[in-house]
């Protein structure tokens, strides 16, 4: 009921009221009044057909002028006119029906082992529901639609090497151990001997295995050790493993698999990948628990992919967290905005050295602008929005207190503006969508719609996949920084006088005390060392990725597909002839 009421509000807002500042808003239906089919939100053809059919559970008729819908009764033929709320109930039922259809087909696919089959009409319906009626769906229903149609907007993975990583081809420019020390292809005993072949690397591997703990079934522990072996075959892996061992005690870190919620194995162009997080490091625990997504066991090239994530969580976060504990600055490390880039760079460097394809977007973002990278993370997820540069840790207000609450207030306002920007982004993507619709109806493409498939996937992926998830993340940032009441008030068009969340915490006496300790810790030699490491890894990754680019290492789309650059060119030419062709009604 709560979802329905919220959906009702969102539908009325989404129709134009309150979200845009344009002078003209389309006329709209209002709660409590008779529903007018000519006003926003307009019913789709599918929704109207559903309402008029027996499937809706009622007997409804359109008025003679088509402007209203009423309950049909034998006495009057045209009975009480439906109100906005009544129609919204039917819209919700229709949206839920689309999700139910997807759920049913997925279950059947699981039973039969054959991929789910949807007609073109069903695909279009599901896209339309996911994009325009998502506010009527529960998180589970949205997830079902995403799973059923996830291939439409999943990331294009790297070219699929052999599932046996020993035979996987090295990516161009990769630094691989010399052939003499690599295992001969096809060694079946690799499963029982995960250690590197190189004698020095093997010694280091054995020291690490004695130091850390592994948990899980024997097969899972063997898989984790194989990933560790892969990491220690790399130069950087050995460098950071030696650093980890220096000063650490046995049993301070534990490595195991974890089932991560909402993570699913999906088939992407013949390669199995998974969605969701690769893993976490619980660095405040004792021992530090390093969790890798159990789905690494189920995907293609899972050992190498998992090894890169293991390097990130173990030799990145956990190594630095233990060093920070020994130095008494672990609280400050937790709040430092270079901890995540450091762990990221450790994982990417090991990944490139072991021959993984260079397709990770965040890696290219960091290499292309390491100074600007922390700012990009802070508007991506709530956790990072609460981290600070060393400069910010030291910054003070004129009254001598820490400037952090004010810094967070600025971030909250920026996140709110970015959230509102998503409405504009959505309108922009819909302009591109109208361009797509225009060209797909032209004779050149009407008979061969596959040519525009790449364009359709990109646009659909943003509208149904990324933008909703981005909105969720930005709302999460606002509520994390200022409290749920602040988010609710901003949604209602007001800005409250008070803040909760992290801003309230750091404004309190306890929070200010934490910030004092953090400001002192900012001068720690450990942080200087990590900064120097980051600079070294930036140079290393620059060399490892020289001459490479992500698109050339991803599987090529079919040659007949129009590329985005070609499509943008087509749009520019058409706009020159007809500047309004992307404009909406």
């Amino acid at each position, binding site marked *: 009921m709560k979802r329905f009421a919220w959906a009702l509000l969102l539908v009325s807002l989404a129709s134009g009221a309150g979200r845009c500042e344009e002078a003209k808003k389309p006329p709209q239906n209002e709660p409590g009044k008779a529903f007018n089919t000519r006003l926003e939100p307009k019913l789709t053809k599918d929704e109207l057909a559903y309402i008029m059919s027996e499937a809706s559970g009622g007997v409804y008729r359109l008025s003679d002028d088509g402007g209203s819908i009423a309950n049909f009764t034998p006495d009057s033929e045209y009975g009480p006119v439906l109100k906005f709320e009544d129609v919204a109930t039917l819209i919700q039922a229709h949206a839920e029906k689309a999700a139910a259809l997807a759920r049913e087909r997925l279950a059947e696919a699981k039973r039969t082992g054959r991929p789910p089959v949807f007609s073109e009409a069903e695909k279009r319906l599901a896209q339309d529901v996911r994009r325009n009626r998502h506010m009527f769906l529960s998180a589970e229903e949205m997830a079902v639609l995403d799973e059923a149609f996830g291939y439409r907007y999943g990331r294009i993975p790297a070219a699929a090497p052999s599932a046996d990583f020993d035979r996987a081809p090295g990516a161009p420019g990769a630094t691989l151990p010399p052939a003499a020390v690599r295992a001969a292809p096809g060694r079946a005993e690799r499963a029982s001997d995960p250690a590197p072949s190189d004698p020095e690397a093997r010694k280091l591997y054995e020291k690490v295995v004695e130091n850390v703990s592994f948990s899980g079934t024997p097969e899972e522990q063997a898989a984790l050790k194989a990933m560790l072996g892969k990491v220690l075959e790399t130069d950087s892996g050995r460098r950071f493993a030696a650093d980890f061992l220096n000063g650490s005690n046995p049993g301070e870190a534990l490595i195991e698999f974890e089932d991560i919620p909402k993570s699913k194995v999906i088939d992407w162009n013949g390669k199995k990948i998974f969605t969701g997080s690769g893993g976490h490091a619980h660095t405040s625990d004792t021992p530090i628990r390093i969790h890798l997504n159990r789905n690494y066991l189920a995907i293609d090239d899972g050992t190498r992919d998992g090894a890169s994530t293991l390097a990130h969580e173990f030799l990145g976060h956990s190594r630095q967290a233990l060093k920070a504990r020994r130095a008494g600055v672990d609280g400050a490390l937790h709040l430092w905005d270079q901890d995540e880039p450091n762990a990221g760079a450790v994982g990417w460097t090991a990944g490139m050295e072991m021959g993984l394809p260079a397709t990770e977007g965040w890696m290219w973002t960091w290499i292309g602008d390491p100074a600007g990278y922390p700012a990009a993370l802070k508007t991506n997820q709530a956790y990072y929005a609460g981290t600070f540069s060393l400069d910010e840790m030291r910054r003070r207000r004129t009254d001598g207190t820490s400037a952090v609450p004010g810094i967070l207030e600025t971030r909250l306002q920026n996140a709110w503006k970015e959230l509102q920007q998503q409405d504009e982004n959505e309108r922009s993507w819909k302009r591109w969508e109208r361009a797509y619709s225009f060209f797909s109806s032209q004779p050149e493409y009407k008979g061969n719609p596959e040519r525009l498939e790449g364009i359709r996937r990109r646009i659909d992926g943003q509208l149904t996949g990324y933008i909703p998830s981005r909105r969720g993340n930005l709302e999460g940032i606002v509520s994390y920084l200022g409290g749920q009441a602040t988010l609710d008030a901003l949604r209602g068009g007001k800005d409250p006088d008070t*803040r909760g969340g992290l801003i309230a915490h750091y404004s309190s006496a306890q929070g200010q005390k934490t910030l004092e300790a953090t400001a002192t810790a900012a001068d720690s030699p450990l942080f200087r060392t990590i900064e*120097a490491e980051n600079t070294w890894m930036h140079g290393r990754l620059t060399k490892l990725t020289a001459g490479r680019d992500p698109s050339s290492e991803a599987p090529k789309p079919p040659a007949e597909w129009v590329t985005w650059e070609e499509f943008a060119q087509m749009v520019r030419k058409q706009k020159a002839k007809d500047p309004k062709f992307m404009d909406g009604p």
Partner: protein
Amino acid sequence: MKAAPALFGLLLLGTPVQSAQKTMNASDPVSAAARFQSPAGWQRDTGSFGVDHFVTFSKGSLRLRVQLLGEKGSRYAAPTAFLAGPEAKGKDGKPPAGSLIKAGKRTFRVYTRSSEAEIGPQGMGAPGMLRIVDEAFAVIPVGKRFFVLSLTRTLEVPPESPLDQAPFLALLSSFHPK
């Protein structure tokens, strides 16, 4: 990714919204080495990557940055290394050519580049955000060090118009090494 901290102990009592209390202006190495005008209405900030310091001015999707490089321990020892590196190359992977542009009374070589990445929450394989970055930048050597001044526009949607360089040219024309 690190596990998010448990904030169960957070006070839920409201705290007054932070007024625009002034911060004490700590000196930053960039402002100590050069004069330049802060554009009105843009958010000013300072930061560093290792020994490389920068000052930024942000407004919406735009960011102006004055970065000081070439110190001992810098990620680039000289302008030539910067121009040959990944922070100067565009989508085609080639070093930029640049063109001479007048800003104020002086002429600068201004380079442009654009890049695009599909990123999601770190480590996640879900549908990703498009991060489309258009940039104009100039490299100004001063002794053994050098400045990189830049204007960046970061969008999540393919742009329909080119980057307007006016704020960048205004920054360039106000920039004077000390």
